[in-house]
């Protein structure tokens, strides 16, 4: 059983807000999926959502109130962080520790810059107050909380018009009493004030990441709450306010109401949908281990899928600065995209990026004032993009402007224009391939054992060259490469994560006490899901332990099943040695193992729709004939007359040898000479590089 229960003809909608477009997908059993792209409305993202929803329902011929599930990937939290448009937060800490947030790890951002700057903390020093209190690692009170100081601090902060309050005391994960008392006091003085306490937001040891995570929650909550409440009201007026669910960074969805208080879980709301969808595609296409490559205009996201699941890491950082201690889909962003600019540096080398032409002025070919050659300009000049049909023909580009920009750089480098254009692609590919290799090798994997799943506007343009560079044998371009994140929203379960820190040697750990802690976490998880309307039979509680060798600083996560007993702990130690070997290259079986954290994920299962209904929309029955031919430049081969295909025209038995270019509305794919491409049963394009030496 699952959340949507036995009523298979329920209507589900996934809506993903992007920078330019808001992607919308509607699924209904026994019907063709409906896909709509509407322009995003950055001032009020909800507007585009309502527009898209209305259009989907019009096309489906159903009233909006018939929608049973609306899953939404939002950039509200991400943008608030990137643009520093967060709420004014006050912070109260243990006496002596208000500067923890500012000192951080004490490591400096740049090694060789004498004139460097460090990003300011989210809460400035005068809004960080200290109160006398101290709890020890076992949760015992060392110094009682001084209530007078608490009221004094609160009054001072309220007089500064803070919009929210974060409280982070040392060892509060072991005893949350003092933090809760501060929250009560705050409620007395101002019942409307949003208060978050570190023992609830991030109950894990290490004061800096815990405080930072709590502060991020406080900074985002008022912004996220405002947005979600507005959206819920809009939806409520159409009868579906309770159907709203939001995608979290961990790859699971959560009800709109819950999302209001877990704002710090929404930072990767958008890309998480892509990771979930890519994992599903990888699994069904029988390539359970895959690297994902999502290339956009200014940056590219790289992710890893193992055994058909997106990898989730236990901590990350926001804006590359602020630690955020929440489970997050493991996505690595690099500053290379279609808008990355090619330039000659002081030593005479051709460099690409990190400077990007962005959306404004954009690549030279956009004719909006850009005069420097970008990756997109190089693709256009080399025939890899069609000037007549850029973005499905809805967008005019000016190839002569690309040429002028490339020619200028060619003169500076004393090379011909072709060499410079192909050089920009080579250099950009080399750096992206380097990033893919570093991302996988740092996690203990060899990219040659993986398939590459490419999506995003520019991903399929570069994927086959990257695969060749990395020794990857298979490239997968999903049928819905352009709306993958929205599709992923409809494949996600509901999910809440809980943590309990308990540092204890495994051999002397009290299994009954660990079991009690797990049961307690499970009760909280189940209660939260039930509160969101999930029936008990759809609730799954997944336990895991963070373990390490005694003396180590950091830990590895090991899943466990069933009641905690001595035997179970022994088994967990066994798995730990194995995971340690896989991750770090060696294990020390005779070393004592230590428990660090108990983790529990409460999953509310959403029933999958039948495969047949959702992915085959683009598999047509037309003949596999090219729609056109044009001259395209391939490195090592030069200009080649190349057939252009429309993806919608492919049938299931299609198999085409490169060189070829395959276009669809929102992306273009290159098949290089000596590569072949076929369509699989899911409608994915599968490029094989096996033919190459």
């Amino acid at each position: 059983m699952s959340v949507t229960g036995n009523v298979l003809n329920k209507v589900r909608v996934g809506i993903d807000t992007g920078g330019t477009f808001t992607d919308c997908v509607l699924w209904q059993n026994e019907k063709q999926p409906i896909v709509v792209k509407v322009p995003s409305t950055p001032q009020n993202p909800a507007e585009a959502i309502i527009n898209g929803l209305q259009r989907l329902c019009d096309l489906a011929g159903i009233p909006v109130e018939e929608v049973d599930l609306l899953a939404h990937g939002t950039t509200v939290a991400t943008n608030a962080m990137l643009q520093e448009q967060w709420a004014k937060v006050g912070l109260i800490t243990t006496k002596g520790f208000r500067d923890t947030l500012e000192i951080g790890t004490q490591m400096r951002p740049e090694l060789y810059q004498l004139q460097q700057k460090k990003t300011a903390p989210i809460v400035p020093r005068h809004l960080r107050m200290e109160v006398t209190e101290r709890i020890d690692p076992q949760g015992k009170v060392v110094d009682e909380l001084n209530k007078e100081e608490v009221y004094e601090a609160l009054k001072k902060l309220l007089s500064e018009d803070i919009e929210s309050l974060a409280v982070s005391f040392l060892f509060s994960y072991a005893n949350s009493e003092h933090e809760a008392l501060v929250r009560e006091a705050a409620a007395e003085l101002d019942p409307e004030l949003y208060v978050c306490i570190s023992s609830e937001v991030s109950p894990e040891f290490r004061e800096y990441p815990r405080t930072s995570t709590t502060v991020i929650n406080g900074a985002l909550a008022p912004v996220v709450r405002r947005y979600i409440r507005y959206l819920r009201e809009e939806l409520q007026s159409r009868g579906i306010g309770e159907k709203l669910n939001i995608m979290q960074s961990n790859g699971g969805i959560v009800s709109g109401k819950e999302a209001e208080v877990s704002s710090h879980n929404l930072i990767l709301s958008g890309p998480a949908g892509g990771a979930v969808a890519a994992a599903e595609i990888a699994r069904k296409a029988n390539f359970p281990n895959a690297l994902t490559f999502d290339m956009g205009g200014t940056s590219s996201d790289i992710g890893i899928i193992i055994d058909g699941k997106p990898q989730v890491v236990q901590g990350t950082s926001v804006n590359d600065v602020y630690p955020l201690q929440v489970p997050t889909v493991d996505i690595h962003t690099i500053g290379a995209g279609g808008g990355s600019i090619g330039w000659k540096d002081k030593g005479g080398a051709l460099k690409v990026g990190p400077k990007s032409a962005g959306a404004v002025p954009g690549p030279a070919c956009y004719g909006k004032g850009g005069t420097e050659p970008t990756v997109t300009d190089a693709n256009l000049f080399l025939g890899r993009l069609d000037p007549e049909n850029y973005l499905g023909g809805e967008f005019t580009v000016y190839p002569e402007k690309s040429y002028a920009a490339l020619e200028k750089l060619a003169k500076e480098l004393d090379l011909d224009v072709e060499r410079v254009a192909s050089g920009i692609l080579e250099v950009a590919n080399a750096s992206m391939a380097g990033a893919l290799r570093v991302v996988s090798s740092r996690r203990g994997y060899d990219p040659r054992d993986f398939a590459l799943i490419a999506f995003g506007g520019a991903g399929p343009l570069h994927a086959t060259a990257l695969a060749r560079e990395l020794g990857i044998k298979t490239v997968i371009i999903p049928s819905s490469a352009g709306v993958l994140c929205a599709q992923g929203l409809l494949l996600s379960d509901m999910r809440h994560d809980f943590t309990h820190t308990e540092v204890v040697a495994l051999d002397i750990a009290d299994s009954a006490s660990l079991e009690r802690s797990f049961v307690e976490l499970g009760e909280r998880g189940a209660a939260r899901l039930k509160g969101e309307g999930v029936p008990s039979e759809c609730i799954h509680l997944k336990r895991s332990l963070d373990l390490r060798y005694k003396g180590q600083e950091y830990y590895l996560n090991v899943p466990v099943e069933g009641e905690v007993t001595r035997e179970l702990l022994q088994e967990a130690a066994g798995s730990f040695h194995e995971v340690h070997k896989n991750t770090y290259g060696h294990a020390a079986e005779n070393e004592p193992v230590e428990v660090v954290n108990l983790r529990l994920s409460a999953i509310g299962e959403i029933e999958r729709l039948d495969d047949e209904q959702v992915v085959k929309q683009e598999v047509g029955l037309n003949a596999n004939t090219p729609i056109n031919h044009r001259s395209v430049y391939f490195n090592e081969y030069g200009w080649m007359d190349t057939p252009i295909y429309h993806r919608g025209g492919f049938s299931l038995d299609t198999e085409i040898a490169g060189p070829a270019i395959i276009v669809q509305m929102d992306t273009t794919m290159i098949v290089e000479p000596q590569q072949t491409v076929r369509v699989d049963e899911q409608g994915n394009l599968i490029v094989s590089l096996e033919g190459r030496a």
Partner: protein
Amino acid sequence: MRKQSQLSIEKPETESKIDAITLEVVYSGLLAAADEMSGVLGRSAYSPIIREMIDYSCGIFDNKGNLIAQAENIPAHLGSMGTALRDLFNDFPLDTFQPGDAFLVNDPYRGGQHTPDLHVFTPAFLEGQLIGICGTIAHHADMGGKNPGTEGFDNKSIFEEGLRIPPVKLATAEQINEAVTTIIAGNVREPRATMGDLRAQIAACRYGEGRLKELANRYGVDTLLEVMKKSMDYSELRMRTELAAMKDTEATASGWLDDDGVGGPPVEIRIKVMKRGRDIEVDFTGTGPQMEGGMNVPPAAATSAVLYAIKCVVDPSTPQNQGCFRPIKVRLPEGSIVNPHFPAAVSLRHLAVQRIADTILRALSELYPERTAAGTFVGFSSLAIDSWHPIHGNPRVIQDDLGGGMGAHPNGDGIDAVDTHCGNVAILPAEVCELSYQIRVRSTELIPDSGGPGTWRGGLGIKREYEILEQEHQGLVYTEQSNPDFAPWGLKGGKAGSSAKIRHVRKDGQEVEMRKGYFQAQPGDRIIIETSGGGGYGYPVLRDVQRTIKDVREGKISLEAAEKVYGVVIKDGCIDVEATILKQSK
């Protein structure tokens, strides 16, 4: 011992068969390979000092021993592996290298840094041809000697600093040289961790070999070797172009260590920097004679400090390779603290290394303010205490190094509270401390008014208080820059930052000030360390009044200092305009 370390090895050639694009593509492959080696080492190392504090570096060298690409995690390792590698050629000439060989060295008198830093090198061959060499350096938790962790300010000879390993063959293609590993394991405090870390170093080198072979297969050996050569020429050109754009100068400066490690008088580091045209020379003539204690600096470490300082000033973004170093000449007088005679102790060379970097930057700061900054905290304030696990009771050593303020510069305030110059390690979290040791961190705070006043203010220092719990503890603390005369200097009218200070405050309130020393502490006693703030830049009265008001509001500058030093009078949280104008006009 070389009297002069000349880094220039070969002249650049202008002829070339490859273009800018091939160079960039293949070179980025070499840089990624060094970075991947670093990932392999970090993942498979055992000790926290390597994995968590990231005290290791990896590099790729050409088939003559020139550094081509380096992934260094702390600047202390900049360019230093090459010194050890070239010294190794004296015992193992290049033409005797065989596929599968691995070499090991840590001897500070054979191109090493200090005994805990182990170097491993392996040659890479393709079809019988040597195509490059992979190298790693990693700081091991312990190499034996009288103190846990091997380092000691009052060590009087290298023989108190654990196992000294001259260049030896650690492995052949067939097997590890077990005679070597057995001797090492028998001389260190944590043999299992040390062996694990050593295996991780070998694994990283082998990984690098594989990547070099792949690159040679893909682009051809000739292209690969040509790219290596051109990449050095490229970095050299970048450095020389920048140098040519800088005014010529001959500048001198002196920097001082508080003492010689055993309670003697301050020790001088004298620097003369000559920048002429496209070359730069750093001469240490006049630097004090080698000291009795453990802060002498072997040539490889002194050279790294020079390269760090020059790279900061000339061009921080030039790719790290031998070409960068060609325009730089270093003179290290024999028998001085920067080129000591065997068997002087060197284990705490990093304290002097910080001061070397600081002194070079001081020499250059008056002439190139747009490229430098005022003085930075270089005291390296640290503590090491023998403690016990609070629950299990097993003995363990707590170590912590504190950062301080960076110097202000014409474009902004110095950063508050960071590890500086050649170091960049993390602070021990208070919760990790109390979970792991019988020691409670009572506070970790920025120190108001510690940053040197100026138009731009120096960064603030850190104050940290450690409280001893449960039973008597023994430990040692040390710091440099405790003498106010040696505090981070101001520039162009800016004032000096505060000096560093360590106190042992007994439970009864009695205080003992310490600079470098051993102590016994009872439960309830506190060790309080205060590090320096950075120096200020420009005259304080010229500071933007709004910035001073903000600093006062944030408690980074006191009301009194605002009035007395900056001439900004604040009453009830608002600026008293008349009084301020009156003050500042004086």
